[in-house]
């Protein structure tokens, strides 16, 4: 099941709110906001000031690649604690060209339609409506065309 009802790019940005600020950019070509260490050069996501590999302060915010390759995947069939969205949903690890593996939702919830190495594209997806009627959105990866 592919759910492409992304709040981004449909003009309803004023009515949507991210699960947390500073995780991703919205719009037609969303990007995850990561960090790059100025000392060891390694990337991190989400971004924290301190590098989780060498403890150097001052990691620079970078927009991570919007496409990557699928490395592992499954599907969540029962709503986990604290989650108020729909099930099932896809869940996996996507490798980005920055040398980073990211834990992420997947828009594809049928594991048999996924395979290692598949090209994946970042999208922004709704998870629930909050108490003010706004769409709460988060990041996910969708099987993408490999162009």
């Amino acid at each position, binding site marked *: 099941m592919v759910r492409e009802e992304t709040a981004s790019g449909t003009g309803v940005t004023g009515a949507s709110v991210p699960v947390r600020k500073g995780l991703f950019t919205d719009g037609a070509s969303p990007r995850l906001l990561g960090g790059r260490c100025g000392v060891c050069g390694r990337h991190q996501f989400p971004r924290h000031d301190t590098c*989780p*590999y060498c403890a150097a302060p001052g990691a620079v915010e970078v927009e991570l690649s919007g496409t990557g390759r699928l490395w592992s995947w*499954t599907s*969540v069939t029962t709503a*986990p*604690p604290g989650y108020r969205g729909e099930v099932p949903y896809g869940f996996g*690890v996507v490798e980005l060209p920055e040398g*980073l593996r990211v834990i992420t939702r997947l828009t594809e919830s049928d594991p048999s339609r996924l395979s290692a190495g598949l090209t994946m594209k970042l999208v922004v997806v709704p998870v629930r409506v909050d108490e003010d009627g706004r769409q709460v959105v988060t990041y996910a990866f969708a099987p993408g065309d490999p162009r």
Partner: protein
Amino acid sequence: MNDVEIAGVGIHPFGRFEDRTVTDMGVTAVRAALTEAGLADGGFQAAFCATAYGGVASGHKVLSRLGMTGMPIVDVEAGCASGGAALMLAAGSIHAAVYDTVLVFGVEKMPKGMIRSSFFEPWQEDSGLGATPAYFALRAQRLMQDSGVTKDHLAQVVVKNRRHGVHNPNAMFRAEVDAGSVLGSRIVCEPLHLWMLCTPNEGAAAVVLSRAGRDTSDGHRGRVRLRAAVLRSHLPGSVLNESTPMSGLVDEAVPAPTTLAATAAYEEAGIGPDDIDVVECQDTDAARELLSYEELGLCPRGDAATLADSGATALGGRIPVNPSGGLLSKGEPLGASALGQVVTLVQQLLGESGHNQVVGARAALSHTVGRGANASVVVLTR
């Protein structure tokens, strides 16, 4: 390390006990261990209580019931490895000549269903990323990608452990299952079906450690030595270890916390994986057991399926793993699970395991790994 011995062990069965509090269960296990150690009236100099969800002063509440307070009582949390962490602290304090006799116990009363962990931040729960079994599934999926492990191997781990669990009076599930039924149970997170996942539950276990060479005329169990009790955390970079990061590096060379703990434990004990006769390992899910074969050095990297297929890890095999039935049969009371393994392995080394006895066992290894990441490896010999 060869100067710490097991003076006594005690256990409260693992399962569901609606009329018993976590403190009640702790009292049962502690009283049994102290009685066996010849310390029914007390006499230990410190106590470490392992629990992840027991709450404030869990250890004090148990020992207050017995009137055994005044000494330091320290609660220890290290996820599923809490009991291993408590054991490490206790053994270290004896080894360092701070104490002669230390009580270690673990207690837990988990709510039913998927564990809600305070580990996850609200945005992660909101995004559906707080799904603990899904992380197990991602690891299982990679194990299947990287080796010859198939879903049938996962089912066979459950079949083996449930068969072992039939004869364990302290286990929660004591009926045999066949592979078809395992694969027919509900899919929780592909490739993991419901019966491939252990059930968080309730229970308690206790171990009394003392300096080796103490007078044994009171009949305590000084014949089993604690040769290593090692705790390790994760190294940064791996996205699939139990530290559950939101990202990691494209790097296959990051050693797993279990590997770190096992390597240190073998060195401390002065024996290697080939010397081990019986293993109790963390079968949180069926794939976790197979991965542990590799991480503990029971087989080369990538050979877990071959080892399982050979029958070596079943009772009667070369290196039986989880003769108690494992967590898949016992369920997992987090704080008590590592010490429950030690209790069952002490019984193995003393030839008291009945139908599940590994004949002639002289060296035993217990392994737990969980949130943190925390991995513990304990080596016992007689």
